[in-house]
């Protein structure tokens, strides 16, 4: 063992810098894994530490109606302190033409009981009771072009902005993008009259419980006592668990991106080891001659392989920790709150283990050759080792497959996803290998006779012995594939969203229109030249029983697998005589009117909800329509195109049975220009202030912003794969440099000009870069098609300019990297290079 370690170390003497460069291939992969995993751990630690700050209270109870005195008494009976809050969505207007959907909130009492509140200027919230003052989220100020001291109008009331809300318990960064929070005092909110006009508002009671009281137990008891109120409860602990689960998923998937960079780097290390071993053929043969066993030779180079993995992983640890600083900056607007930098030893250990493990596994492939190096090499330099199939090679391939699957399955906690990830990688590798072999075949047979000499030589370099074609195709192709897939998927999704408002489809939606506001809304729309195109009645209801069992029973029964949210939620349903164009019946028959003599109303249920509630045609269910029971039966199951910009519903009733139930309306309009949209929105905000308006153009802008942020963060990680590909490219070029120097020297001796040598290199890297990028691009187009069609269910775009741009960029990068790594080969006199390099 001592000899093996000593020999492994001594053997690196002449090539330590080169070996270190090879080990760089895995640095980025390990760094990505450690950075992502550490950030995940930091976030989880922050979630744990600030759990109560997520809710701002121990327990919250919310509902659509104002709390009755009985409810309030029961809530107070839980002990501790209570605060009441109310929130409603409304339009804020500012300046002459500005308007934006906002979340208007007011809180009474000591809320938040936990967590930090940060305003600019500090303590701005204390100024709310002074009058019509508002503290708003920054997103509103930015879009309104307002500053502190500016004025916004909510309903009929004007408010002065006295501060910016930077941090508030329960604040969601995504919600802020759509409808920024505007906080006012409770009396001021009530004075706007916005709550009285039936707009969709949420009333919340926040409880701070004495230390000795278990929030979960209180929640259970209150759920039981206030069952009829149908309140939604949340505890800080639940929030923590939900957020923890979401974070786990996000970090599991992003770490797979990091793993891909590591995997690619390991291919690079293995390839470098392959060349290195070939250069060590004589040393192994000498050792064998002097009595070293096959195992000893193998162990020496395996130790080196492990050393490379360890060196690369150690550098990766440093970079990973640096990345941990960078990622929060990139994800700034997507994270729920500030996080502190924490060194996560488990993440570091995991990253190092993955780095060393994966590179060792890959290194085994070239190392298997060491066992077969014959001592006869010392007698005959051209001796060829036996070339019979090696069963160990298949064992190593199987181990690599198992490692990829194991890692992916562990990260995603799903063996199916692990299998899908491994299969996708397997297919990508197979396609890239096939393309590389095809290129070699083609380069060998291509009729290049008419090409200039430099191009013929460059193309020949693609297939000649010791070519790096396969490795370069693999590294560059995979990097291109990864990055381009992200870009293509993003553009497909955005194109679909943009298409939502195209043609005759509506691009403006109005919600919370009261029955007596429908006619005025129509009039306003007509007056502003944008008539309403679609009006849907909306009736809120809850499920009271399902197939003979009450919703409460089903929720309490832990043995059933029906989701609690689907049993507890308030459904906003509609009634119609016919189906909408965005709907398609996939089972049963849609009934537009109740058939004569029917004991139950035939309702149509949306496909995914039917699956969640395990309902099929003919199943009976009962609704509580604001106190009135309605007996129904599943008459049809519908497929709904949710992505259309219009009101879609889980349940559609026939005409008749819901007549007389309290109803609000949703309406849609098609505004030809943004100016029409703005004019109509402003008119509605002025005349019907409780009506919420959603402008598709605005939503698109928001979604684009979110996609861009997510895509930027993921692309940042995916770019690690591309950079790893370039590091592998540099290693590959340097590995073959020795051979290139000899050739260049020979060509120089025979009279080749420097320019000609550069042209040869240019030709070779152009062919390689072009094909690697094109193959990666082809894979990305296929992946985009599959993801768009089967996962996102949107049409896949053939974005040719993006594809062409990516292929050109990767080819250019390949040529530049190849040129940089080959610098000096053609620029020195032949003799000097021979002495230095050979």
């Amino acid at each position, binding site marked *: 063992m001592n*000899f093996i370690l*000593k020999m492994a170390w001594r*053997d690196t003497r002449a090539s330590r810098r080169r070996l270190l460069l090879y080990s760089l291939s895995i640095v980025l992969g390990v760094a990505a894994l450690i950075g992502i995993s550490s950030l995940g751990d930091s976030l989880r630690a922050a979630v744990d530490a600030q759990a109560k700050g997520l809710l701002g209270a121990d327990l919250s109870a919310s509902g659509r109606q104002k709390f009755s005195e009985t409810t309030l008494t029961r809530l107070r009976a839980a002990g501790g302190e209570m605060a009441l809050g109310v929130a409603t969505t409304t339009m804020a207007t500012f300046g002459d033409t500005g308007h934006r959907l906002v979340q208007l909130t007011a809180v009474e009492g000591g809320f938040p009981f936990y967590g930090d509140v940060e305003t600019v200027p500090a303590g701005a919230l204390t100024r709310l009771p002074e009058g019509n003052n508002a503290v708003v989220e920054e997103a509103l100020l930015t879009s309104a072009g307002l500053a502190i001291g500016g004025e916004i109008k909510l309903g009929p009331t004007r408010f002065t902005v006295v501060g910016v809300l930077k941090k508030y318990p329960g604040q969601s960064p995504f919600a802020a993008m759509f409808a920024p929070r505007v906080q006012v005092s409770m009396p001021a909110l009530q004075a706007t009259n916005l709550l009285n006009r039936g707009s969709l508002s949420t009333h919340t009671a926040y409880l701070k419980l004495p230390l000795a009281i278990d929030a979960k137990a209180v929640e259970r008891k209150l759920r039981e006592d206030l069952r009829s109120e149908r309140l939604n409860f949340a505890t800080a602990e639940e929030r923590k668990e939900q957020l923890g689960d979401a974070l786990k998923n996000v970090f599991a998937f992003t770490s797979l991106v990091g793993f891909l960079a590591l995997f690619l780097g390991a291919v690079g290390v293995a390839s470098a080891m392959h060349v290195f071993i070939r250069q060590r053929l004589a*040393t192994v043969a000498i050792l064998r*001659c*002097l009595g070293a066993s096959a195992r000893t030779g193998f162990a020496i180079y395996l130790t080196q392989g492990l050393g490379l993995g360890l060196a690369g992983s150690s550098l990766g640890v440093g970079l990973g920790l640096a990345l941990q600083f960078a990622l929060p900056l990139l994800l700034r607007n997507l994270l729920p709150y500030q996080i502190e930098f924490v060194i996560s030893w488990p993440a570091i250990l995991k990253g190092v283990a993955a780095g060393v493990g994966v590179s060792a596994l890959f290194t085994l492939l070239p190392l298997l050759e060491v066992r077969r190096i*014959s*001592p006869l090499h010392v007698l005959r330099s051209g001796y060829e080792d036996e070339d019979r199939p090696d069963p160990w090679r298949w064992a190593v391939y199987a181990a690599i497959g198992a490692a990829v699957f194991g890692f992916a399955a562990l990260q995603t906690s799903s063996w199916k996803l692990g299998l899908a990830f491994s299969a996708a990688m397997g297919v990508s590798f197979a396609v890239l290998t096939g393309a590389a072999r095809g290129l070699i075949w083609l380069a060998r047979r291509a009729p290049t006779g008419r090409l200039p000499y430099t191009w013929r030589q460059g193309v020949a370099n693609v297939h000649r012995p010791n070519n790096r074609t396969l490795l370069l195709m693999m590294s560059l192709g995979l990097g291109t594939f990864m990055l381009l897939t992200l870009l293509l998927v993003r553009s497909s999704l955005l194109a679909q969203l943009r298409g939502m408002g195209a043609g005759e489809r509506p691009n403006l939606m109005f919600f919370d229109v009261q029955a007596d506001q429908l006619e005025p809304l129509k009039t306003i729309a007509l007056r502003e030249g944008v008539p309403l195109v679609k009006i849907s009645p909306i009736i809120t209801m809850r499920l009271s029983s399902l197939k003979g069992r009450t919703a409460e029973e089903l929720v309490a029964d832990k043995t059933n697998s029906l989701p609690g949210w689907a049993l507890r939620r308030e459904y906003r349903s509609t009634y119609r005589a016919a189906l909408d164009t965005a709907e398609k019946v996939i089972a049963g028959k849609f009934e537009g009117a109740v058939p004569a003599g029917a004991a139950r109303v035939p309702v149509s249920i949306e496909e995914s909800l039917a699956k969640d509630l395990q309902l099929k045609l003919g199943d009976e269910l009962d609704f509580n329509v604001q106190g009135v029971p309605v007996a129904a039966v599943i008459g049809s199951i519908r497929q709904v195109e949710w992505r259309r910009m219009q009101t879609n519903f889980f349940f559609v009733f026939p005409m008749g049975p819901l007549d007389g139930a309290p109803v609000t309306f949703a309406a849609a309009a098609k505004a030809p220009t943004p100016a029409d949209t703005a004019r109509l929105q402003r008119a509605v905000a002025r005349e019907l202030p409780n009506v919420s308006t959603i402008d598709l153009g605005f939503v698109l802008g928001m979604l684009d912003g979110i996609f861009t942020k997510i895509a930027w963060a993921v692309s940042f990680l995916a770019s690690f794969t591309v950079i790893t590909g370039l590091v592998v490219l540099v290693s590959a070029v340097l590995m073959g440099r020795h051979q290139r120097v000899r050739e260049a020297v020979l060509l120089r001796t025979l009279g080749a000009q420097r320019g000609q040598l550069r042209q040869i290199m240019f030709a070779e890297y152009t062919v390689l870069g072009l094909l690697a990028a094109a193959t990666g691009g082809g894979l990305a187009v296929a992946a985009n098609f599959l993801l768009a069609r089967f996962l996102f269910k949107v049409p896949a775009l053939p974005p040719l300019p993006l594809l062409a741009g990516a292929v050109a960029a990767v080819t250019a990068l390949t040529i530049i990297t190849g040129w940089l790594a080959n610098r000096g080969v053609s620029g020195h006199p032949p003799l000097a290079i021979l002495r230095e390099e050979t």
Partner: protein
Amino acid sequence: MIVQPILNVQRLTKTYPTAAGPLTVLHEVSFTLLAGGTCAIVGPSGSGKTTLLGLCAGLDRPSSGSVELAGREIGSLDEDGRARVRNECVGFVFQNFQLIPTLTAFENVLVPLELRGETGQAEEARGLLERVGLGERLDHYPVKLSGGEQQRVALARAFINRPRILFCDEPTGNLDGDTAHAMVDLIFGLNRERGTTLVLVTHDLELAGRTSRIIRLRSGAVISDETT
């Protein structure tokens, strides 16, 4: 005193498969060498000298026939078994020196002992390098040594494991006249001092003439076996 045979070669044949059919490069070669003796294998290029040396030293396996080295039939051993025999009984000197480029002269000499797991033999290695005139060059890498110096390091390495038989493949082939002369003196001197059996493969008839026996090969067969 009865002198035991150290190398017993019987009906040794080596055939390689080629595209044009099997190619026999060594055909039914037989001879026995007694311990402490010196022997030269000579013949023109392509006569099978190096193939015979490789088979005798256990670097390769015969197609048929047997090789008994130091009392062990090495044809039946696997590669690791033959490696053990080489480490215990055999020393090598090659035409192109075959030093490990990443090890110093001193470390190159120590390798055979380190492979056995033996430590504390530094003095012996140092002594051998001094004996071959390289006492001042212990820490030099092969690239910093001349051809003659590299071959002397190889000779010191060949003797470090106290071999019972030393195989030399054209040991002076890459050396100039004076250096070659000095090298030959060293080989024979050390061989005498340590009682090692010496097998030389060479084109150089003058060098062959310094051994006590000359085996001549042509086209893979022994055409003469003379004691000088």
